[in-house]
């Protein structure tokens, strides 16, 4: 879901982000400003290496500042909670999100996660609608950006 939100954020701000950075083994460039610093920080918070976390925290602090460190820690903590709630309750993806994220899920490898089985596989019609949306949604978001300007 957040890969989708990230892509839309990019389309609205006129940027193209590399979503595979979310799922790569090593922190890589996504196109998001300071993205590799943030990804390295998330990896370190969830990893078990205190020295790596200390370095990642210091790097984030130097590049983005103290308030950003607090907000980054808050987002990581939020999804440590939210992911567990989703997995423990077996909730499916929300209908519209399921439609709009079919391509992105395979791009970031999410379809291979065990919890993917909580969302019913889309039928032919939904797959077709998903493909059409994948073409027209970016145009829609670009149009919305232009209108808001």
């Amino acid at each position, binding site marked *: 879901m957040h890969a989708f939100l990230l892509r839309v954020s990019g389309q609205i701000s006129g940027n193209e982000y590399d979503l595979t950075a979310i799922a790569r083994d090593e922190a890589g460039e996504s196109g998001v400003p300071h993205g590799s610093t943030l990804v390295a920080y998330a990896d370190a918070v969830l990893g078990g290496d205190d020295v790596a976390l200390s370095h990642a925290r210091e790097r984030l602090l130097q590049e983005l500042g103290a308030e950003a460190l607090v907000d980054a*820690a808050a987002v990581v903590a939020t999804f440590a909670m939210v992911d567990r709630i989703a997995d423990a309750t077996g909730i499916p993806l929300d209908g519209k999100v399921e439609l709009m994220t079919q391509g992105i899920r395979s791009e970031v490898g999410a379809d291979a996660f065990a919890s993917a089985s909580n969302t019913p596989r889309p039928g032919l019609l939904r797959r077709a609608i998903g493909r059409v949306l994948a073409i027209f949604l970016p145009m829609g978001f670009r149009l919305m950006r232009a209108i808001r300007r």
Partner: protein
Amino acid sequence: MAEPSYDFAPVRVREDLVAAHRRVWEHISRPGTWWTGEQRRAMAAETRHARDCRLCRERATSASSSKMRGRHDGLGGLPEPIVDIVHRLTNEPGRLSKDWFNEVLAKGVTEAAYVEVVGVVTQTVNVDTFCHGLGVAYHSLPAPALGEPSRHRPEGARPERAWVPMVSPANAKGPEAGLYPLGGVPNVGRALSLVPDETRSVLDLLAAQYIPAGRVSDFWFDPQRAISRAQMDLLAGRVSALNRCFY
């Protein structure tokens, strides 16, 4: 000094976030809907203890954790099925399955009691992860408040596609009116709604730490953070990928 406090944190933590964490700590210490304050505190303590469990470590490196039997290194204050929920939810959330959930129910844990355990564990993980991320010591767990669980089951809870019944915005009436302050809410925002107090607490945290649940799809909403929306969603996506969470 009120607890939890970030007075000794290496960076200043904004007041609304400190206040949200104080509300969570108070929430965990109070008698819940199906569990006492003492039991809820025991769940929070077990969540911390679970990280060093030998069985969980062995399962983490096993191809199929469900086939590996054994006893968790528990603290001893909770029934074994609850210890199993706490440990699996803490250590291997991406491997939870409907079959495992059905086994939990077969051991006599009700859906509502299960949902409350999930609420306590995940909110404890939330606050502890924040502390770990900042490099501050975990807060002392709150002293449990006395009293009996309310045993309130919302009338509007209905089976849907999730493993547990949920309250839809349309069915949030009576005591549940106002459960979703912004109206629409994604599934994850109502996943614990079989125990409305857990939902209220989680939505409170979401608003203070990320974005109010009803505004997640509003790309022009500005939560006034020091990192951009794209930076927040990159972090969210990365954490979810590490947790192997499809949602």
